[in-house]
């Protein structure tokens, strides 16, 4: 067990995607265009480490989406070859007391 395992579930994308989606994206359903396996986003296999995450079909490993996070932006690419959308993130919360 390490902090950077081979992969985790799409559950792990709830946070990053939650910054740009209005509803929980992890229960969204998808049919893999490559192997026809249905899966929710939570069931995809997610390879990291951050800041670059790749979510793949659990059946055939075809790329379902990619996310790259920057302090101010989130880049989201759907599928393997399309261009990526750049979302501007809400401002960083001010004055968090540092330990």
């Amino acid at each position, binding site marked *: 067990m*390490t902090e950077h395992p*081979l992969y985790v579930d799409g559950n792990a994308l709830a*946070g990053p995607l939650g910054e740009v989606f209005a509803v929980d994206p992890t229960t969204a359903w998808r049919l893999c265009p490559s192997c026809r396996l249905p899966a929710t986003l939570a069931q995809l296999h997610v390879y990291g480490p951050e800041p670059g995450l790749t979510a793949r079909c659990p059946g055939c490993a075809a790329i379902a989406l990619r996310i790259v996070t920057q302090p101010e932006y989130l880049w989201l690419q759907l599928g393997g070859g399309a261009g990526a959308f750049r979302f501007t993130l809400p401002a960083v919360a001010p004055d968090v007391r540092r330990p």
Partner: protein
Amino acid sequence: MHGWRRARLTERTKQTATGRTLTFEVPHWPGHLPGQHVDVRLTADDGYQAVRSYSLAAPAGAGGDRIELGVQATFGGEVSPYLADDLPVGAEVEVMGPLGGWFVRTPQDRGPLLLIAGGSGVVPVMAMLRARAASASGDPCVLLYSVRAPDEVWYATELDAVAEGVRVRLLYTRTAPEGSRRPAGRITADDLLGMPPPTDTHCYVCGPTAFVEHAGELLLAAGYGPDRIRTERFG
């Protein structure tokens, strides 16, 4: 859309040699469902940030603005050893959540329940068990809990209390207590004998990736449908 909220560490409880439950006070916490997680963000003085996911261990409600997270310190890890032992009580981090609607089980969901946890994977399962205990559900419920050795059991005393109406079976992978009938070893098909039947049982599996893969394959082989198995791999 979620935002980051401030969370102040109020209590740290030792569960195992490297496992801790941390209680944070989060003003205006909106509540959460058993099985959900939060992302925790730490910011260094130079602005460097690190984000990790941690499961919520307690159901919402009684605690008000308090949330309880399970943190397993991983050797050489960047974040978990710091959270587990070094973050001072009273210090603040940022949390985002509650997150995830997939690995969720509420007391309103009916039917037999088979929970399979490996190591600190018991944390979100504990939230489900605690919520279930508070609801007085009569549906069958089994927890198969795989740990390396007796001193690696999280919530050891509470599991006995929650066990009213829940069958808790500990599966030791390396060192079994003296007198155990089951030899130490990872979960096998035999461990699934006598479990609630595949027809209407919902299965939740949480633990390290290799454990979840293995347990998932055993469940499928035993006839549990893929649409009734929900998993959470944490690496």
